[in-house]
């Protein structure tokens, strides 16, 4: 065409610029089409970035709420531990007070029993009888006090078991709330990704005609899709437009799971506490029986010494009195033989009581906050007496990746094509919060976005 114009340029001395105009027009049209294409790509890119930011912020905000709720519930769990500890410590104090009383009573009984044995001679039988009687009363009284100790130990056992179970269910309550909250945050995150991706504006209103396949995008189908979103990390929505072009939006919402709970538990596992209480209860019962037996022996010896004492009243060198002296000596000697059994039982009871003290002290120390365990399941903590939740293993981050794919149109001369656009955003929801000590000040901020 240009050669023709060149060869016949004399004929066409007017309008020589027309080819140039045509060329410029073509270039302008191409540039306009490229510009339209580019702006569309830019719009899609903006939608992608917006949806990533919105999804990440929504997920992060909900996760922050979840952690704030955990912190609030944790303070209730701490109060529950404290009240359980306080009432159990009170019972321990009652047990210690009563046990100390029983111990003092039993040790005085032992002193009196030993004095009675030392004075179990005819001449001192009256004094020995008084000592033996005192030992009888004191040993019996100690045994009675030990019954209260035994009752208190049983009450401690019941309370520890009940409190341990209650604390387990406090943990379960918080754990289930956190797991549910994380699912909800992911679900909402996806919802925000899709809602901000610009899909809505690209869809037709209503639903496809019943019984007809749905090749094209309808808003109702999209809403149904949104309703079906669960807590999976990855979802994709794809549709075809009126020109049969394929479109899709991917959403990938990731935040670590909330499976690993760090729990501060009491020094001793619940069943170890139970073992110590069983042992102390058995020893209390044994000491009580030993004291009742010792008391019976002391009483028997006191009666023997009383008889000796009455014989002492008539004891004199003259013949009828000599019999009294003889009887007095025999009875005192008999009491001297009887008393060691009481003293031995009394000593054994004191030894048992020392053991009870040690076991109860160990059990009380075992209730204090001790090690931290990691519970990855609902029943991992059941052996322990949970005090509170120390933390949930989590990096406090949410990352949302989105991608949009739009197939270009075939215009015959011109075939448009759009590159896949992707974007991501990272939100940190640490804020200033902490689960322990409970401080519900978790808050979400975007800390990283793609720079493309």
């Amino acid at each position, binding site marked *: 065409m240009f050669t023709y114009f060149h060869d016949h340029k004399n004929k066409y001395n007017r309008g020589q610029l027309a080819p140039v105009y045509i060329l410029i027009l073509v270039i302008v049209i191409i540039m306009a089409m490229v510009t339209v294409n580019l702006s569309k790509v830019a719009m899609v890119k903006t939608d992608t970035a917006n949806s990533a930011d919105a999804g990440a912020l929504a997920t992060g905000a909900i996760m922050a709420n979840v952690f704030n709720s955990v912190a609030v519930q944790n*303070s*209730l769990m701490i*109060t529950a531990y*404290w*009240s*359980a500890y*306080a*009432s159990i*410590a*009170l*019972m321990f*104090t*009652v047990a*210690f*007070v009563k046990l*100390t009383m029983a*111990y003092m009573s039993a040790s005085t009984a032992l002193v009196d029993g030993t004095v009675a044995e030392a004075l179990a001679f005819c001449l001192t039988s009256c004094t020995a009888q008084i000592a033996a009687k005192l030992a009888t009363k004191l040993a019996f009284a100690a045994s009675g006090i030990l019954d*209260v100790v035994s*009752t208190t*130990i*049983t*009450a401690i*056992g*019941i*309370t520890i*078991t*009940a409190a341990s*179970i*209650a604390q387990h*269910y406090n943990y379960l*309550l918080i754990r289930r709330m956190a797991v549910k909250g994380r699912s909800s945050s992911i679900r909402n995150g996806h919802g925000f990704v899709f809602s901000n991706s610009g899909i809505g504006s690209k869809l037709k209103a209503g639903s496809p005609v019943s019984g007809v396949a749905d090749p094209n995008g309808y808003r109702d189908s999209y809403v149904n899709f949104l309703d079906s979103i669960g807590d999976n990390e990855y979802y994709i929505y794809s549709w075809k437009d009126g020109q049969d072009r394929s479109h899709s939006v991917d959403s990938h919402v990731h935040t670590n799971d909330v499976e690993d709970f760090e729990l501060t538990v009491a020094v001793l596992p619940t*069943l*170890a506490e*139970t*073992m*110590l*209480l*069983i*042992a102390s*209860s*058995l*020893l209390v*019962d*044994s000491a009580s029986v030993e004291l009742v037996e010792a008391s019976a022996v002391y009483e028997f010896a006191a009666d023997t010494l009383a008889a000796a004492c009455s014989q002492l009243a008539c004891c004199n060198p003259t013949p009828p009195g000599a019999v009294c002296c003889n009887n007095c000596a025999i009875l005192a000697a008999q009491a001297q033989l009887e008393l060691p059994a009481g003293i031995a039982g009394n000593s054994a009871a004191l*030894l048992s009581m*020392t*053991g009870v*003290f*040690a076991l109860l*002290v*160990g059990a*009380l*120390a*075992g209730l*204090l*906050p001790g090690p931290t365990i990691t519970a990855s399941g609902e029943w991992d903590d*059941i052996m322990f007496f949970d005090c*509170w939740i120390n933390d949930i293993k989590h990096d406090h981050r949410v990352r949302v990746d989105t991608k949009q794919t739009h197939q270009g149109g075939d215009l015959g001369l011109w075939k448009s094509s759009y590159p896949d656009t992707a974007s991501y955003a990272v939100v940190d929801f640490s804020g200033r919060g902490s689960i322990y*000590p*409970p401080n519900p000040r978790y808050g979400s901020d975007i800390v990283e976005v793609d720079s493309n």
Partner: protein
Amino acid sequence: MFFRLKVARLFGLILLVTAITAQPLYSAWWDRNAIPLPGGTEEVFQETRNISGTEFVLKYYTNSQDAKAISGFFRSKLTALDWKEKELLKEMAQIPGLKIPGSVEDILAANSIFEKGGETIMINFLPQGAVQDGKTRFTIARGNMEEKKEPGEDDFIPRLSGKPKLDIAPVYPDAALIALSENAGFMRATYFVKDDIEKVSEFYKNKMLNYGWSFMEEKPLKKLSSGDLDLSSLCPDCPKDKKIQQAVKPADMAVQEFDFSNQEGDLCIVALTDAGPKEAVGDKLKDTTTVMVQYEKAGK
């Protein structure tokens, strides 16, 4: 007429004098009977509990002062009100062969016991720093341990006074309430029942339906055992006496859970635990169960 007027005036005068003098007298008695509290003390809650046959009123407080300052306050104020301090730690220190570990010594040293006319006040502190919010938590328990003369059959049950505000689940016959926690839309009550776990589970499976609950799930019975734990690992300071060693026996526990829901979507968990140290107390805990009923309102 004149006489009647005089009597009426005299009667009025007596009434006036009584009213003027009785009020301060009552206040003085009340002041001397009340437990003074250090400034800044907040009452968290209170409960009344039976401990070995004595009814104790437990009041739970927080204060931002440290335990030593609070303890010092009570020592000076209660002593001035004629309460006599019982030196439990000193008495325990006299027991030959008893080693008290530092942690327990700290607890007992911080805790105080005061006695007056048969009444006992016990002040217990949660160890300092156990809860890292800068507050000191303490409990004041008050009861008359001398009032109880004859031991009762059920003295071993740490029974709480009162009952849950919400009537959301059946209560097993003769069950004793031993723990209660109630918040908005949440309730947890723990009962002690003198029946075996099978009977109690049947009761709840049947009776919960009458309260509008539908059975959701039964978690399988979990049986826990301590195994043969060594005494030296449980209680390093315990005497190595053969009698004590022999007294330590393995312990078992079984837990069973039933979940119920209602039409409003509320959740109710019933957890049953056989009460534990059976061997220790002969028949006392034979065939007994603790029942925990937990109610969660939907959306809470």
